[in-house]
């Protein structure tokens, strides 16, 4: 039998029972569509998390108080609340560790902030002027904290865009306006450019004040919660990390590094942790979608078994007029493959529309990858061939008369 005749026979067979063909195809369409959409959500999330980590600045090292227990235990160890780091440590790092480009000590607090008529609860970061350079903070209005304000403990504040829009109506220029942080009067001197990101840990929902001011008016002590260090270049990261560790061990008079009362992380560690989390998330989504793809495949096998049984007499007749066993196999296999391939193509379109809708309507970051398309298509082709082959082979083995007698 010629290929063109085979295609024509397949067309006739599939259009003879359009509803059933459509329903079988639907299983595959939904399966593939959801695999593609799920993977797109997972990979989109991964990309946006990595972008927001990178937007914090480049060649960064973070020093936080408390012992290192491994990155995975950040939450439970309560690190950050321990009081072991001071501004002296930051100053020592800046002056004594080689290849350090800039150092920004930070004191992070959560405070109630009020402006006339509004209020918000947000993160207040007490820091030094270098912070803007180290953490890639840019100003859209006004200016960042300066050295004088730091030295004289001025009550000035720079608002992140989310904090700004929470406190002031759109269109009003907040620079020069008064706000209260924890009942203390502050004057707004600038608004930063949005970094992007959302939800928990939004880098734009923040208020920056001079470190000294924060220590005096808000915290009431001299400790800091984090030091951000920018290394001169990527190659010196490891050396800087080691230098900081040695320096601080010395300063804190600790001889056993295992008992250190601080931890040093670099950006790469954090990116790596985040990607393990997000790839687990992607795998989870993909396996849920994979189950629906499997269900679609079982639908195909079910349909192939039913059609083969229903069309046993037809198979008998075809063999009686000279069809070889391989012609019969080819015919049924072709039907299964045609269903999975057209279902696969429609599924890709559906998956694409779904991700588009998710991005437009729900604002979820998505990223369709060639990998997910190939994966979904490969799986559907495998399903079609595998689940089509078995019933086709079974049908081809019947003797023509037995097949014709089949009721």
């Amino acid at each position, binding site marked *: 039998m010629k290929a063109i005749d085979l295609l024509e026979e397949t067309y006739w067979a599939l259009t003879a029972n359009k509803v059933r063909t459509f329903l079988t195809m639907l299983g595959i369409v939904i399966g593939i569509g959801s695999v593609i959409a799920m993977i797109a959500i997972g990979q989109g999330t991964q990309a946006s998390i990595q972008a927001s980590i990178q937007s914090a600045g480049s060649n960064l090292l973070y020093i936080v108080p408390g012992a290192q227990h491994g990155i995975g235990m950040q939450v439970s160890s309560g690190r950050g609340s321990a009081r072991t780091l001071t501004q002296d440590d930051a100053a020592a790092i800046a002056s004594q560790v080689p290849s350090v480009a800039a150092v920004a000590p930070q004191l992070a607090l959560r405070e109630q902030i009020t402006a006339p008529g509004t209020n918000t609860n947000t993160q207040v970061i007490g820091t030094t002027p270098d912070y803007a350079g180290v953490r890639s903070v840019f100003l859209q209005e006004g200016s960042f904290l300066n050295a004088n304000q730091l030295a004289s403990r001025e009550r000035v504040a720079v608002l992140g865009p989310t904090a700004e829009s929470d406190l002031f109506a759109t269109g009003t220029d907040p620079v020069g306006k008064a706000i209260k942080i924890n009942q203390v009067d502050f004057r707004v001197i600038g608004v930063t450019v949005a970094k992007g990101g959302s939800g928990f840990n939004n880098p734009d929902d923040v208020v920056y004040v001079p470190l000294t001011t924060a220590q005096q008016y808000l915290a009431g002590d001299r400790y800091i919660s984090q030091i951000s260090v920018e290394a001169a270049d990527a190659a010196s990261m490891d050396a800087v990390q080691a230098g900081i560790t040695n320096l601080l061990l010395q300063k804190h008079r600790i001889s056993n590094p295992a008992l250190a009362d601080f931890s040093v992380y670099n950006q790469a560690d954090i990116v790596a942790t985040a990607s393990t989390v997000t790839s687990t998330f992607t795998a989870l989504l993909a396996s849920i979608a994979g189950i629906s793809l499997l269900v679609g495949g079982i639908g195909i096998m079910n349909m192939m078994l039913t059609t083969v049984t229903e069309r046993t007499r037809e198979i008998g007749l075809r063999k009686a*007029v000279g069809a070889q*066993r391989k012609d019969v196999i080819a015919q049924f296999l072709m039907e299964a493959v045609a269903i999975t391939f057209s279902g696969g193509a429609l599924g890709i379109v559906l998956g694409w529309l779904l991700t588009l809708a998710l991005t437009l309507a729900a604002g979820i970051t998505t990223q369709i990858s060639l990998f997910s398309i190939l994966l979904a298509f490969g799986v559907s082709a495998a399903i079609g061939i595998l689940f089509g082959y078995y019933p086709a082979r079974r049908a081809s083995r019947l003797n023509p008369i037995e097949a014709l007698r089949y009721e």
Partner: protein
Amino acid sequence: MIELKSITKIYSNGDISTYALKGISFRIKDGEYVAIMGPSGSGKSTLMHILGCLDTPTSGQYFLDGKDVSSFSEEELADIRKEKIGFVFQAFNLLPRATVIRNVALPLTYAGVPKEKRFTIAEKAVVSAGLDEDHLHYYSNQLSGGQMQRVAIARALVNNPSILLADEPTGNLDTKTGEIVLDTFKRLNNEGRTIVLITHEPDVAMHAKRIIHIKDGGIISDESN
């Protein structure tokens, strides 16, 4: 040349065995026109299926043009069915949800004939089987019994077989259409083709040059007309 040597066919369903053919032997030379008669259940269709290489005997040998077909593989049997034999089934066995022309052209698809040629050959076969050309594009389930029978005959003729086997080809036809079909058979026989048909009607059997009577799976008479 068809030669059967003590062909038996036993159907066994679990404990019950039916002896449908009990040692049939005969020869049919090329160009003969043979009618097979016998009561219902005597084994006529079973015999015909074996002659048409659609089924294999339980024991015995079948020589077709000198070759022992009973030892052929499935692929070889399919080729013989495709090249040498046209078969008209007692139950027609048309493809449902397919037009007359597609039904008739089906054997040509497996013979690798190109599409346009298939349809011209199929049209000719439809006409020689005595069916109106108007019916070419009817679906096979929209036809009367007699029309289906003629489609089945056209399909058996379409690959220009040297042996035509017909299981009660006139059973569903009125006398006039029956005559058309029998005339076609006669013409094909005059062209040198071997014809074997099964019938209950002595009138139909009279068209053949030789009549074989069977009963209970055995030959009871074999005489020329």
